[in-house]
């Protein structure tokens, strides 16, 4: 009998790395949402909105720093790029001959 505690999936490191890549892709979207939020409230810009824009900006930078530390380290080790999945060419040159 196999022990039920045995890890099923061993490539945890590369799995984690792909998720970090996903996070790096999503970060600018988060940025867009954060920077669009002040528009939802009308009226004159006061101290609150000023503080909001600058603090969300700063948190984005912090996130980017955390992600870059992981991605940059691996970028050196894998110069060919660690694409999670090879992009399937939409149009192979041979097919359109």
């Amino acid at each position: 009998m196999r022990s039920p505690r045995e890890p099923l999936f061993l490539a945890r490191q590369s799995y984690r790395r792909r998720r970090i890549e996903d996070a790096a892709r999503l970060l600018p979207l988060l940025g867009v949402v954060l920077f669009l939020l002040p528009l939802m409230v009308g009226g004159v810009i006061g101290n609150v909105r000023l503080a909001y824009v600058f603090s969300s900006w700063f948190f984005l930078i912090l996130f980017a720093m955390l992600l870059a530390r992981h991605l940059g380290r691996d970028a050196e080790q894998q110069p060919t790029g660690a694409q999670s999945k090879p992009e399937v060419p939409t149009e192979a040159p041979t097919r359109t001959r």
Partner: protein
Amino acid sequence: MLTFNTLVGVCFLYVIMLFLVAFVADKRARRSKVRFLSSPMIYTLSLSVFCTAWTFYGAVGYAARSGLEFVTIYLGPTLVMIGWWWFLRKLVRVGRSQRVTSIADLVSSRYGKSNLLGVLVTLIAVIGTTPYIALQLQSVTLSFAVFARDRSAGWVIPDLEQTAIWVAGGLALFTILFGTRNLDVNERHHGVVTAIAVEAVVKLVALMAVGIFVVWGIGGGPQGISAAMEQAIQAAPEGAWSLQGGRWVGLTFLSAAAFLTLPRMFQVLVVENVDERQLATASWAFPLYLFLMSLFVIPIAVVGLAILPKGENPDLFVLTLPLYFEQDGLAMLAFLGGFSSATSMVIVASIALATMVSNHIIMPLWLSTRLGVDASEYRDARQILLSARRLSIVGILALGYFYYRISGGGAALAAIGLISFAGVAQVLPAMAGGLFWRGASRSGAVAGLITGFAIWAYTLFLPSFGEAGVISASVLADGPWGIAALRPQALFGVDGLDPVVHALFWSLILNCSVFVSVSLLSFPSPLERLQAAQFVNVLDQSGPARGRSFNAATSEDLLVMAQEIMGSDQAQAWFQAQAEQQGKQGYLPDTTPDFIGRLERELSGLVGTATAHAMIGQILGGTTVSVDDLLAVADETQQMLEQTSQLEAKQLELTTTARQLSEVNEKLTQLSIQKDAFLSQISHELRTPMTSIRAFSEILRDGGANDPEAAARHASIIHDESVRLTRLLDDLLDLSVLENGQVQLYPRREVMRDVLDRAIAATSSVIDQEKMHIHRNRSDEGGALYTDTDRLAQVFINLISNAAKYCDAKDKRLAIRVRQRGGRLQVDFVDNGSGVPLESQSMIFEKFSRLSDQAAAGGAGLGLAICREIMDKLDGSITYLPGQSGAAFRVTLPIGTQSPFGRRWPSDINHL
């Protein structure tokens, strides 16, 4: 006291320091000590050319006029930088793998190395950047004037235009010295980049120092700033401090687009990039830089508005606030910060533009005057290239200066920043489409660029000259020829939008739609598609894809040309290295497609893709890409797939072979065991009759059998035993004759039924003894044979007697079925016994294989072996049929007259 002379002196010293920094950095780079120079921090700081004097001085003015909106200029680049994994990573990778020298080069290279696109992008860049350079000259001039005006009592009022000339001249000198001193492959300028990094630090320190002074020195801390802000909002005209959604989104997008497409940004972001680590660090460090640059903008603006007298130019608050409080040192620092912002922008922009102008306009023109010449004609190429660069730099700065002079340095110039952004942003669709969409075509890019550029010029650039400019007031108000739908600032009736957002919206929307629809409709050339595949799949490729194949080309010609462009030493070293890579001695490698591709990329780092392509094309002749070349450029994935499937096929083959081997091995082992068994068997078979013969003959000899009857019985036993011996020996002989092929066959015509009849008749004694029933369908047995029917009958006899002897059923039955299948006769002998066990099925046709000894009486286990040999000779076969009701054998033999025996006769006779 700060005098004008001190100001000029400090300025001069500062410039000398920059010269020194650039000089030392260049020297270190030449000694390949680039480790420090290529550090991510230097790279990040060099990106600060984005923050020009327009942002250094202008951001405060912008904030004083419209509040928080200034921040959009920094939010766009922030989003681009933190999203580096999407876009910048690919862009930088393409830039490095294709040795791209400028944004015009990138676009031209992507769309089939088209020089038309290179020229177009260059023109857009020059038109978009020239006013921007004028703006920098204006800001430096203005900042000089601030010092002059405030203390006009003691100072000589400087001639503003003369200042602008001096600044432009000095910048041209610096740029020529460090931007074109060496023709570096890749167009990297370590000296300039390091100087820019130093200036970036000066800018940041200056602005933050002023900010800290304003907040804690005179503003009364954060609370005081907050109060001043409330006051500024109260005093501001209606709506100035409210967020306008359109402008907020539009300007954020615009600054993001411009960040990617501004020639100077492309220069520092892509061309000067060395590795991905730099980008990873810059992805957070550069947004942080922007964050710090804008942190104190609002405080400076609101305090300036509150304290300084009305009518003071808000654009210069950074300078006037310290001066107002007699902080000369701080004012000096702020001045140097603004000076740095202006100079770094002008230097990088003029290098980038000069590269584009010389590579895409001057060099192609020069090349076209030398069509069809040989390599030696490139003698002066290097010199011409350098001169072209220098001339371009001077030309661009002169253009900027004249623009400044003509526009008069008024308020119109201040608005030019965003206009310039919108102009260069027209390159974005072609660039992004080229990186992510393989279907983007050259015609689409050209059409899109022209459309976008024309609409930008019509709706934004030309109206910016004011009503006295190209577009008159009446056209602005009512549209050309009174067509309201064509009003420049309300195209197709869309009014109520901010002019910049309006122009951005229409130009980019139409640019994109024309680009996409023309791309969808057009058919790209092979070279274009090759480049498209390389660009779009750049992240999947470990190396550049293979280039084209050429006809015979002498590498000597190529070396001569390369020497002229790269410089002799560098070219020779490079050629030698290439030759070594091919395993050759000397300087002349074979002109393989691979080598040509590398040389072209190497040269394109110097003269641009299109020019390098044209130069090599001139020397090599045919430059067209054939479909075969395209086919050769298989995608990496495709190659991987092929390799994997090949490996799988090989593995399958190996598995099959291994299985065959193990089968053979097993059989060999069994045969070996059988051989041993054979030896013991044969000695046993021989010994048993021998023993009884000996025993009975001894009895006879010794007169033990006086009774003649007994003697006769003994003699008959001896006879029987010797007959058995003879039969055994006959069988053995028969088998060996059959196996050696030395057998004579006597084919004749006979019907199958007769052969079977004979065989059953011959075995009738055994059949009767064992009480076996034979089932036949005689009507099926009419097939005619032409074969040695005696031998065939022998096989049948063997099978029938085997069935009789070994069938273990109580009520023995044997079915004989004859069929005709595909030109062959099949005769099946199926009994109702327990059959042959699976493990023995492969062995029963071997010699001396008897399944058990229980019914061993009689044969020596040679019967089936002989049968097999006979059937072999008769060109037929005998096999065991598994899965029947009992033991089943199938004899297959050819029908008809076309027997191979006829052909076999002569050789067989010879053997005999």
